[in-house]
């Protein structure tokens, strides 16, 4: 138990050592790169690797404190409890402000070490500069943690028992939501560091785009999964039956996603055509800035500050200062250096480049509209002193007109050729897809009928994108070109498979959104045991309501038997849980997912003796929404395995030997 007793001191000390290492890494390699001093530049790698070791020790120390329930630590006492299941003791490590910062730093260090270890093909000065920038971010976060949010602060006298973790957060979906989200946020720091290093060197070329792409793609995959986990959690845990609420915290994670998606696409133009360079650099800076802004919004309480109790203005001031240094500094560097990036190949508006620019325009406009909507209450308050917010009507109102052309263009874009394309010819190749879309839509209208224009648009876009993605794939592998098809399928680059999957996934997602939006059916009722409610053809019978014990809660469980034309489909067991530490009630929705719809039931409080208020939903195509997101993330993973982007791909070995890449002529096509 000795180690457990002193673990917090060891953790704290390791964190301070990490700060020293990060300070060295932020300065010496940068100076070395400027002076062409190989020894100093070479320091970046061992420093980055050692750093991850010390942060890991620190993180392990905090985890031990949670596992042994060391209530002499303030964070453990205020967030944990001995009766909590082990999974939530561990997830409790990052279930609060201080611990989640430590997780941020750990992930930041892991990414830095990964660049150090796997970035062998990067030219030495470039790698030294990128790692130095990465270390500057680490320094900022370490100072923030040590000065304002130290997770190792002792509580004297120690608490006898902890307060416990908010029961809403005691959930497997949410246990893994923050780590994925942070892997995404922090992953974009690599694109940021690479962009700053490129600005310092004044050179962006196709090789740069190839280096930055796998890291960006990895971050994008993590962020996609992280956002989906959060949305899924809101869907089944909050019991409101919705999956997206446009609240500031959700928007905070969505903005970097939109900008990151734009970055992935603009980097393609840099790689293939040596064009769009300063824009891509700007996107890399903005994407990570959105990640930082997200952290700021969530932690400073500047927006969700209705209850200022949990927030500390000192933290807000620190993060704002940090934001100004990092974002303001990098944008200032951009303003002064972007002009030195030579523009590359020319192209016509109708071309692959043109399509990707359209993609970028729409995605970044979308990111800005989300930003405006999120910060609107703040601007309104600062400028006029009034209070107010924009709700889902604003977001839906501006978002749909931006996404509709994006999805329509996504069908055709991949078929356009570089430099100059024939839009008519491309569309003619997709004429079958257009016909399929119209036919499916007509069948839907006639068969089901009564679909609103908006839902019809959603279905049309979803079907169009799914069919066009498959159609493009068929054209690409030459399904009609006869023999050798299998070979052509196998030779199709993984990056292309990735694109097809990601676009297809988005199509499936759009169908899910349209389905649940168009046909969702909801019933609020007060039911007694034995009573039934019929909703969208499904009969929900409340067969029992009974108390059930849990590890750290007691629950009231309702048992619903769901039948469709007297045939039993499912038994749903929603619960209304009452936690002891901290005392709080939560609802556990019961969901029965089926191919075409989810059955969803929530049991509430007793409305009268023997009668319970319940909410029943039929959620058509809800599952498609999650599956679509999973396919998108899978597309990203498949694309990551492409030989061209594989980290440390051999064909660029020759570049290490060139110590002064900035003297190289800019590659041009």
């Amino acid at each position: 138990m000795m180690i457990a007793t002193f673990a917090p001191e060891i953790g704290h000390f390791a964190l301070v050592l990490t700060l020293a290492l990060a300070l060295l890494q932020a300065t010496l390699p940068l100076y070395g790169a400027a002076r062409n001093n190989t020894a100093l530049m070479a320091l970046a790698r061992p420093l980055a690797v050692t750093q991850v070791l010390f942060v890991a020790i620190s993180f392990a120390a905090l985890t031990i404190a949670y596992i042994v329930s060391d209530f002499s630590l303030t964070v453990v006492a205020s967030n944990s409890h001995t009766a909590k299941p082990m999974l939530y003791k561990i997830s409790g490590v990052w279930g609060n402000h201080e611990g989640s910062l430590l997780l941020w730093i750990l992930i930041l260090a892991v990414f830095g070490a990964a660049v150090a270890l796997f970035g062998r093909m990067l030219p030495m000065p470039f790698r030294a500069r990128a790692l130095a920038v990465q270390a500057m971010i680490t320094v900022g976060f370490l100072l923030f943690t040590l000065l304002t949010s130290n997770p190792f602060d002792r509580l004297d006298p120690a608490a006898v028992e902890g307060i416990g973790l908010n029961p809403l957060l005691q959930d497997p979906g949410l246990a893994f939501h923050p780590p994925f989200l942070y892997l995404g946020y922090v992953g974009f720091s690599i694109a940021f560091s690479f962009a700053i290093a490129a600005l310092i060197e004044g050179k962006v070329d196709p090789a740069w785009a190839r280096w930055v792409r796998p890291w960006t793609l990895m971050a994008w995959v993590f962020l996609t999964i992280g956002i989906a986990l959060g949305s899924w959690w809101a869907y089944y845990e909050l019991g409101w039956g919705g999956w997206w609420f446009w609240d500031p915290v959700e928007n905070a994670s969505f903005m970097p996603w939109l900008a990151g998606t734009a970055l992935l696409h603009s980097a393609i133009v840099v790689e293939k055509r040596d064009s769009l360079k300063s824009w891509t650099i700007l996107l890399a800076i903005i994407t990570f800035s959105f990640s930082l802004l997200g952290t700021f919004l969530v932690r400073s309480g500047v927006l969700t500050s209705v209850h200022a109790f949990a927030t500390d203005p000192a933290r807000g001031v620190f993060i704002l200062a940090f934001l100004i240094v990092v974002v303001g500094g990098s944008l200032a560097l951009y303003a002064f250096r972007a002009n030195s990036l030579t523009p590359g190949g020319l192209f016509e508006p109708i071309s692959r480049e043109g399509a990707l620019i359209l993609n970028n325009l729409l995605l970044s406009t979308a990111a800005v509209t989300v930003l405006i909507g999120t910060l609107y209450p703040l601007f309104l308050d600062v400028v006029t002193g009034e209070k107010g917010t924009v709700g889902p009507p604003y977001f839906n109102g501006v978002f749909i007109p931006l996404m509709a052309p994006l999805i329509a263009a996504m069908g055709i874009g991949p078929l356009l050729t570089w430099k100059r394309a024939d839009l008519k010819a491309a569309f003619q190749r997709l004429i079958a897809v257009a016909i399929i879309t119209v036919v499916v839509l007509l069948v839907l209208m006639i068969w089901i009928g009564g679909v609103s224009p908006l839902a019809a648009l959603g279905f049309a876009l979803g079907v169009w994108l799914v069919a066009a993605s498959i159609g493009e794939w068929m054209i690409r592998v030459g399904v009609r070109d006869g023999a050798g098809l299998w070979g052509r399928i196998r030779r199709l680059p993984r990056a292309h498979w990735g694109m097809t999957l990601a676009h297809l996934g988005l199509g499936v997602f759009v169908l899910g959104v349209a389905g649940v939006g168009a046909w969702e059916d909801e019933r609020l009722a007060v039911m007694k045991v034995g009573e039934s409610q019929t909703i969208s053809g499904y009969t929900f019978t409340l067969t029992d309501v009974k108390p059930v014990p849990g590890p750290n809660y007691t629950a009231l469980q309702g048992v619903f038997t769901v039948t469709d034309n007297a045939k039993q489909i499912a038994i749903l067991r929603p619960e209304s849980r009452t936690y002891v530490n901290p005392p709080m009630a939560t609802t556990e929705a019961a969901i029965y997912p089926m191919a075409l719809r989810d059955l969803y039931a929530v049991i509430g409080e007793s409305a009268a003796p023997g009668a319970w208020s319940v909410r029943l939903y039929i959620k058509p195509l809800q599952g498609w929404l999650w599956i679509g997101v999973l396919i998108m993330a899978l597309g990203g993973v498949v694309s990551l395995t492409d030989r061209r982007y594989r980290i440390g791909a051999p064909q660029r070995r020759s570049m290490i030997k060139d110590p002064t890449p900035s003297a190289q002529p800019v590659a041009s096509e």
Partner: protein
Amino acid sequence: MPVRFFIPLLAFLSIAIALGVGLFLKPAEVPSALVGKAAPEFQLPALDNQVKGLSRDDLAKGQVTIVNFFASWCAPCRVEHPQLIALRDAGYAVHAVVHKDTPKNARQFLDKLGNPFQLIGTDNDGRVSIDWGVYGVPETFIIDGNGNIIYRHVGAIMPDDLTEKILPFLAKVQS
């Protein structure tokens, strides 16, 4: 160097200024859309047989009243409790709405920390809280003798809030 490259920097700086100002805005001063309007119609059952329940009519009897929304599971509620007792000791009629809580826990809370409330209604499902526009507990409202909401305090009432805002406001209303 072309001016367009400075646009992102300028846009960010304006956001940063707004964020900076936003940090120092008093977050607790979220006015209710209901301030200046009549309190919503409601009738809540009593916490237990030791007290009486609370309804809209109790707030329109010619006397200024204070309505506090609280729950035993809410930590800030504990923090502000002494201030509510001080309000009672200053001679004001303080009523409570128990927000999503069990009568047993709420009663224990009051037995332990003291009961400043005259009338206590229980809002099990939080419906009445929604009608009042309560974001979360604690929140406190001041109602004039005609049943109109004239003041709202979001979050815990800290000692400063009591001496600098609430008591002066009450004194002004009384005079």
